[in-house]
């Protein structure tokens, strides 16, 4: 399945296209395995974009987005016979000859900080216009506007919601000169652009979980030398302590309505799942086993919680009604199944699937209970679905390098998100358009 000949160094490509040599790329994305059946689309450089800064090259950002989705393959600029920017300039015959199914053209008119982007999407075979939009924006929002255009195109052509204008959170660990680790909770655009540290500590940070509105992050911090769960509002930086009871305070997961957190506490001895009401901070105990119960995650309808438990001897996934009740074992295949997370449509659960010492990302389709192993790593963990369920972001490791990777939900497209420095772990894809 892995075809090294087909490895496409989009990372290098995007580096050349998006960043001037002066700006050091914080993150590069490399498609390690593409999809044979990806739809060909030609994205012509927009007229007028040459006047914009390197990081705001609209057509290049759109090209990168669509290519990275795994659904499209884009045409290189050198292969284009012409570069039209107006509907009247298009010769569909030429684009058909190049085997292109769709064509995007556009132009940008700028007036100081204000920009107007006109763009048109065509079906090359029918010679038909599918979209024509004018987008008014300002200089600081150009990248975000480009992602919006990608979203519109993606939705039009695949019928699925585009999620290029979303964010991811993750933990970055670096080794300091003192020999101690430094832990940073960072938030970046889904393409890795503009990472922002929202909290940092010399003690571990773990398990970021997004609020359903994408405005808050719950996470675990050991900043006081013991585990505590905090809630931080991103646009104010305000941090509230939610739980710091004796023992484990871990694995926070927001309820779909945003009013509660499911967490792991070990105050009574063994780790159990609790529900914390964010208004009153009152706790309700959900599981009562003598074994390890941890890593709760809510079903999108709020009715169930999936969690990891070793009550059967080895860690496996179980579900329990969120209002309380009997836990049911969900996984039987493999000797280690942990960190289950529901897809946004509630039809499947992604997990860490361990078999004979290898830990991989797998997806269980709930209707059929079949498990599909998607990755081939040895130490893959922490899966997180994209908001449209097309991709799963996860943490991987190879030769001591911890990085984020993504795989399409069908396992066909693989990509690696390589940061300039540091060990990257615990990714969480924000559930909303940023």
């Amino acid at each position, binding site marked *: 399945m892995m075809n090294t000949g087909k490895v496409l160094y989009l990372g290098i490509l995007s580096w050349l296209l998006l960043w001037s040599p002066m700006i050091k790329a914080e993150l590069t994305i490399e498609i390690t395995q593409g999809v044979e059946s990806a739809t060909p689309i030609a994205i012509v450089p927009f007229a007028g974009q040459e006047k914009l800064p390197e990081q705001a090259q609209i057509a290049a950002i759109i090209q990168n987005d669509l290519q990275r989705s795994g659904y499209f393959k884009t045409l290189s600029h050198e292969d284009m016979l012409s570069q039209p920017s107006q509907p009247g300039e298009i010769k569909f015959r030429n684009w058909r000859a190049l085997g292109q199914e769709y064509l995007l053209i556009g132009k940008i008119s700028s007036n100081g900080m204000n920009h107007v982007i006109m763009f048109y999407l065509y079906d090359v075979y029918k010679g038909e216009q599918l979209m024509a*939009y004018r987008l*008014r924006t300002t200089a600081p*929002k150009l990248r975000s506007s480009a992602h919006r255009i990608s979203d519109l195109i993606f939705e039009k052509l695949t019928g699925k919601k585009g999620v290029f204008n979303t964010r991811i959170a993750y933990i970055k660990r670096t080794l300091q000169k003192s020999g101690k680790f430094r832990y940073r909770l960072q*938030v970046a655009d889904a393409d890795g652009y503009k990472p922002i540290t*929202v909290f940092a500590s010399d003690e*571990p940070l773990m398990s970021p979980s997004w609020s359903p509105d994408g405005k808050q992050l719950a996470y675990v911090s*050991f900043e006081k030398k013991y585990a505590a769960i905090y809630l931080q509002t991103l646009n104010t930086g305000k941090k509230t302590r939610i739980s710091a009871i004796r023992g484990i305070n871990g694995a926070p997961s927001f309820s779909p309505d945003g009013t509660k957190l499911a967490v792991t506490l070990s105050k009574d001895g063994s780790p159990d799942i609790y529900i914390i009401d964010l208004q009153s901070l009152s706790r309700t105990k959900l599981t009562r086993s003598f074994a390890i119960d941890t*890593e709760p995650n809510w079903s999108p309808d709020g009715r169930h919680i999936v969690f990891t438990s070793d009550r059967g001897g080895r860690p496996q996934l179980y579900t329990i009604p969120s209002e309380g009740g009997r836990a049911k074992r969900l996984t039987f295949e493999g000797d280690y199944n942990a960190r289950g997370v529901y897809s946004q449509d509630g039809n499947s659960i992604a997990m860490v699937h361990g078999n004979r010492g290898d830990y991989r990302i797998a997806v269980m389709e709930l209707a059929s209970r079949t498990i599909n192993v998607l990755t081939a790593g040895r130490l893959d963990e922490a899966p997180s679905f994209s908001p449209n369920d097309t991709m799963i972001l996860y943490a991987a*490791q190879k030769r001591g390098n911890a990085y984020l990777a993504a795989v399409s939900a069908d396992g066909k497209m693989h990509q690696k998100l390589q940061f300039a420095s540091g060990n990257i772990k615990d990714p969480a894809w924000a559930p909303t358009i940023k």
Partner: protein
Amino acid sequence: MHSLTKLTIVFISLLLTACTTTENTGDILEGDSKNQQQQQLTDSTEIVPYHEDTPDIGNEISTHQLGPEFQDPQNPLSTLTVYFAYDSSQVQQEYIAAIAAHAEYLRSYPSLRMVLAGHGDERGSAEYNIALGEQRAKAVAKMMKMQGVQATQLEVVSYGEEKPATTGHDEAAWQMNRRVELLYQGQ
């Protein structure tokens, strides 16, 4: 029905004006060849970055301050780390003497406190490893309490796979990371 539709239109236009007059306006999307529309797009959530200050300093006391017996490799008190097998919180035979010696020491100095920091290797899921690290630390704590150490003298914390003793990625490194550290604390 008709008046309701009208009312809705008035409402929407009011909303639109409200949006367009706010200072921090988002992108405006217009057009589509088929149906004319104008859409005010919401702005992204601004993120306030964290200003990193000087890191805080821990209060572990070095075993040098405790006495020479902690430096003597022949003395069981010199063992300050207990190692574990994969996915296990069972204390291995070879550490029983060391745990007993530390229990004895804590009993003779009731004002001394100890943090038992549990850790795991990097394999598997991070939060599950937190639970596993806690089980390991609790197994050591239980043995010490059985030997008369006051519960108030002991504090259990688990760091899971977050603070590896060594950053290697083979069985030798993993073995070094599956551990409980015995950390004497200042008064």
